Every structure is written in structure tokens, then in C-alpha cells.
């Protein structure tokens, strides 16, 4: 490894050139290793069952067909319910959007209060919140089930939103707290003298400065909550289940011939939103992760 990296800057001589091409080769192999499953899923989802059985696994589809996608979307049977993935996709949106928005807003407020309105024991409170991000999600299943039962939210989308908000707060607070630490306290002092209160300073000064960390938090929370399976499977009943649980049920409950193309299309449907979010906001994500580490 060290010989490769030391050869990196100007490639001179045959040895260095060989090392460089070797490096590219290794990178290509890694890229292929990660991209092959995706390629397999995409091609399979566009093939007919016939072609899957007869053709090679990696070949491109001969007859390009969207049948599997439309079948997975609104005809596939999930359990006894044959309305496809669509209603569950909608469930996920109904859960994810409020959960992301609420957990992000409260994370920002927490981070703001913990850094700019320091109170006695602020560090202990932050430490305890931080501890929440190290809790394995399995640990909270039983107590959370009891809490949801007591609140009358068991099995509902509302209950699942609450779970995701509470579990996500540890992370969102951590993100915003670390971002706001780098914003000078003098800004808050100046605004206080200018006559702005707690929420005015938050909305008029802190939030407009928070775009990079907002994007990071939204992407993080969106992917976490959208991809969540455990909480969805544990706390949502029947019609309220998110798309990940529906996908699992779809793939596991098919009888007769396995419809690989439908499975793959359904998996793509379940995974697309997070991909889209990354593509749209990815550059802000990288920027946000490094923001604050370098003083502008």
C-alpha cells in the first residue's frame, strides 16, 4: 500500500506507471464489486420470467419490459393484499416526511440551546443525548412497545413517527450541536443586545446559517428512516407498514414460481427515494460533513 501511494504524485519510470495502472485495476475491481448487484437488479427487473430462466444472469434484457415494475407497483400480492407496493410506498412517505422534519427541527433547537444558551449541566445533558446514538435499536423495542401501547399509538403511523423522532433526536442534536459550536457566541450576544429573543435569534440568525448541516441531517434522517425495517416490522400493523416491510413480505410470500423480476423491481422501488435524495443533495452532504472543520 505504501509503495503505491508514494508512487502517486508524478508517475515517472516504468515501475511507477505499472503501480499506477495496478492501482486503477484494483479500484475498478472494487467498483465492479459494488456495482454488479445493482446492475443485476436493474437488468433483471426489465426481463421477462422466461428470459430470466433461460438467459444468463448478467446479460442485458433482450425484450425490454416494464411489466415487472408496474406489477410490483400496483398488482403484486403482499400477504393477502394484492394492491402492490404503492400503498406501502405512500405509508413510508407519510411516516418519513413528518419524522424527518420534526426530528431535524428539534435537533436544531437542541443544538442551539446546548451551545448558545449554556445552562448548568448542559454538558451532562448533551452527554446523555449523545449516549442515545450508541443505543442499538433492538434494545429499545420492548420499552418502546409498552410506551406506544400506553399512549394508544400502537400499530399506527403516528406511533412509528414518534419512534423515529425520538431515536433520531440523538443524531440530529449531535449534528447541530457540533455545527453551532463553530458559530461565534458574539453573534448571539449582539442579537440579544439588538433585542432579539431565543426564537428570533434561532430563526433569523442561526437557521439561515445552517444550510449545510440541515442538508446533512435531512439526508441522514431520510435514509435512516426510509430504510428502517426493524421498527417498521415491530411497531406498524398491517395497513400502516412501511415499504421495507412490504418488500420483505412480497419477496417471502410468493407462491409457485419465484418472480425474480418483480422482486427486483419492488426492491428498486423501495430503494429509489434514498438514491434520488443522494443524487440531488449529495454535494451538499460532502460539503456539510467538512463544514466547520476548516474556517472560511
Amino acid at each position, binding site marked *: 500500500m505504501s509503495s503505491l501511494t508514494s508512487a502517486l504524485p508524478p508517475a515517472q519510470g516504468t515501475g511507477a506507471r505499472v503501480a499506477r495502472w495496478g492501482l486503477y485495476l484494483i479500484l475498478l475491481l472494487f467498483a465492479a464489486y459494488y456495482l454488479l448487484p445493482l446492475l443485476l437488479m436493474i437488468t433483471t427487473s426489465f426481463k421477462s420470467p422466461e428470459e430470466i430462466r433461460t438467459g444468463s444472469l448478467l446479460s442485458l434484457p433482450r425484450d425490454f419490459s416494464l411489466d415487472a415494475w408496474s406489477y410490483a407497483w400496483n398488482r403484486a400480492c403482499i400477504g393477502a393484499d394484492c394492491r402492490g407496493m404503492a400503498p406501502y410506498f405512500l405509508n413510508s412517505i407519510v411516516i418519513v416526511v413528518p419524522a424527518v422534519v420534526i426530528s431535524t427541527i428539534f435537533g436544531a433547537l437542541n443544538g442551539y440551546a446546548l451551545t448558545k444558551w449554556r445552562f448548568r449541566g448542559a454538558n451532562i445533558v448533551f452527554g446523555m443525548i449523545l449516549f442515545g446514538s450508541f443505543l442499538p435499536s433492538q434494545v429499545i423495542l420492548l420499552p418502546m412497545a409498552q410506551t406506544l401501547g400506553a399512549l394508544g399509538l400502537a400499530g399506527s403511523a403516528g406511533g412509528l413517527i414518534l419512534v423515529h423522532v425520538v431515536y433520531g433526536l440523538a443524531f440530529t442534536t449531535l449534528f447541530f450541536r457540533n455545527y453551532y459550536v463553530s458559530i*461565534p457566541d*458574539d*453573534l448571539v*450576544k*449582539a*442579537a*440579544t*443586545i*439588538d*433585542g*432579539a429573543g431565543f426564537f*428570533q435569534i434561532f430563526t*433569523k*440568525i442561526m437557521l*439561515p*446559517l445552517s444550510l449545510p448541516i440541515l442538508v446533512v441531517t435531512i439526508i441522514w434522517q431520510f435514509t435512516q428512516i426510509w430504510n428502517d425495517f426493524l421498527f417498521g416490522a415491530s411497531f406498524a400493523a398491517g395497513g400502516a407498514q412501511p415499504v421495507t416491510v412490504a418488500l420483505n413480505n412480497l419477496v417471502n410470500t410468493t407462491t409457485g414460481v419465484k418472480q425474480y423480476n418483480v422482486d427486483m423491481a419492488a426492491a428498486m422501488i423501495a430503494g429509489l427515494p434514498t438514491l434520488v435524495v443522494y443524487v440531488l443533495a449529495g454535494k451538499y452532504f460532502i460539503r456539510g460533513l467538512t463544514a466547520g472543520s476548516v474556517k472560511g
Partner: protein
Amino acid sequence: MATLSINNVRKQYGSVEVLKGIDLDLTDGEFLVLLGPSGCGKSTLLNMIAGLETISAGEIRIDQRVVNEVHPKDRDIAMVFQSYALYPNMTVARNIGFSLEMRGQAKAEREGAIRRVARLLQIEHLLDRKPAQLSGGQRQRVAMGRALVRDPKVFLFDEPLSNLDAKLRVDMRTEIKKLHQRLGTTVVYVTHDQIEAMTLASRIAIMKEGVVQQFAPPQEVYERPANMYVASFIGSPTMNFVRGTLSAEGDRLGVSVGRERSGFLPLFQAPEQAGHWLGQEVILGIRPEAITCYDPAIAAGNPALVKVACGVNVLEPTGADTITYVELNGHEVVARIKPSDRVAEGATADFMIDMARANLFDPKTEQRI
């Protein structure tokens, strides 16, 4: 415009006492400079006047009103921060008008006030820019504009010039002084720069470890420092301190420096208590400019001038003056000499000390006698 009085104000963080009973009284329109090294509590005191820190004991009055429990926004003060603390997301105009916006002033009225201040500070052309697009000096002006726009009773400045380069700092210093002359508002200004303090202040409060060492007009602080700390903090090069014994020669009191008889420096106007110190060790404080080259014509007309012969060790020309290190009966002292009077290094020459400007200090307490 207002008076400001600070009565026995203390600040404690846990068991650490940062301010140990501060008493300062300002009349209307005064320019107070809090001067001291970092950690002396000057910024804490300023923050307490602003209301950003609580007051552990004592009281602060602005215009006779006790403000201990008054929220910063209701104290009718404005503050300029060392970091300027401009809101990065807002234009210059909105930065300046933010305090009016928060007080619910109508937009048209606000814009009038912003334009008036911008004209005063000559930043009208910058109103639509964001702080990141401004140079240091321009940011400084905007920060002042933000303070000026509300016409507060008291201005607070927290080391406002220390982030500027040397040339700009001098320019802005003059500008602050002009602004104060024009507006006549009461000002509290924190700095560790003695020149800023001397040039701007109507009175200086020199602080050390949470205690005010001296509270007086700049010239008095310079000429009659309350103790050796103040004497050495102000003035560059610093005041010479020479150990000697208070003695009498005939009916004149003086300080004997070194063993030789020529080391007797008669005091011009001995302090009243000086008699108690006869025969005891004292510290004689002489400003460098009080030691000059001997000129018989000048010496004849001024009985305070004492002639001494000194060896010259080192010369440091600064252009306007030549800083000369001379040997005064075994003590090295610094003299500020006119370049035309310069003496060669290693030579011995006659100098004269203006004993009317001499100070005496107690070697134990370091207080002025």
C-alpha cells in the same frame, strides 16, 4: 447620553473572584477606557454593563436607573464587538437596521435611520453587500453603524480595533474620537493598547486582577501614576525605576542613588509624607523624556533640572527620538534624546534630569509616595 455609575461591583465564578469591587462614576458624555492586560476582568465588566453577564454583587446605574436586573435590550446601550459579530446572512443595511427591526419600527423609518448612519460612516455604497464581501475596515464601520443607529445612551466597545492592521487601526482610532466629539455620547471602551487608551479617553481606569489601580484622566495617569504597575503599563519605553535612599543635603530632600556623592538627586517638590521616609529605601520613577542632554541655557532657567554625568551604553534611533541607554551611578536608565543631541556609544556626557516630573514609590507596596 447618560451618566453611568458602577458601585462596588463584584463578579464571582464559583469560588473565583474575577472583579473585586469596582467603583467608577462617569458623567454625561465621558469616554472611559478600561485598560489592562488580558484576564484583568475588563471585558467581564463591560459584559456586565451590557447585561450579558450577571452581577454577583454591587450595582450598575445607567442614568440613575439601577440596571442589574434589566434585560440588555432594555438598557439602552449598544455594543461593538472585537469580532464585529455581523450577521453573515444579512446585508449591511439589514445588519444595521436589525435592532430597529426587532423593536418593530416601520420599514420606511428604519431605512431613513440606516441611511443617516451610513452617510455618517461613509458606507452608503456598501448597504447591499453581505459582511463576507467587506474588508476588515469596512466591517468595523458596519459594526459601528449597528451601534449608532439606535442612538443609545451608552456605547460599549470591546477591543474594536484589535483585528485591524496597524495603519487602519490608527485611522479608525481618530475616527472614533471624532465621532465621540460629534455625538457626545457616553462611551465605555475596553482595550489593552495603552496608546488607544491615552488618545481616546477622557478618563482611564487601569485594571489588574479585578481591581482598578487608578481611575484618572490620561495625562494624570501618565504623570502621576498611582503605583508602579500603572507607571510601567503606560508609556513606551517604560518609566525608569531606580532604587535609592531618601536623604537630606542641607535643607533639601533628595534621593541618593549609588554610593557616590554625585548620586544625590534633589527632589524639586518633595511629597508631604517624604519626611517619614528619610533614610529609607525608595524607588525613584523617571520617564525617559525627563532625562535629556545637558543644555546650560535651559538648565539655568529651571531649578528642577539636575545635572548628572552618565556613560552611554546603547543608542536606538527611532527617527523622532533616539532612545539612549545610559548608566546612572550603576543603574541603567533609558533616556529619550533628540537625534541632534546624540552622544556616541561608550562616551560619557552630561545629562539633566527633570526632577519636577519624578515620582517616588514605596518599594514594598509599590504605591506612590
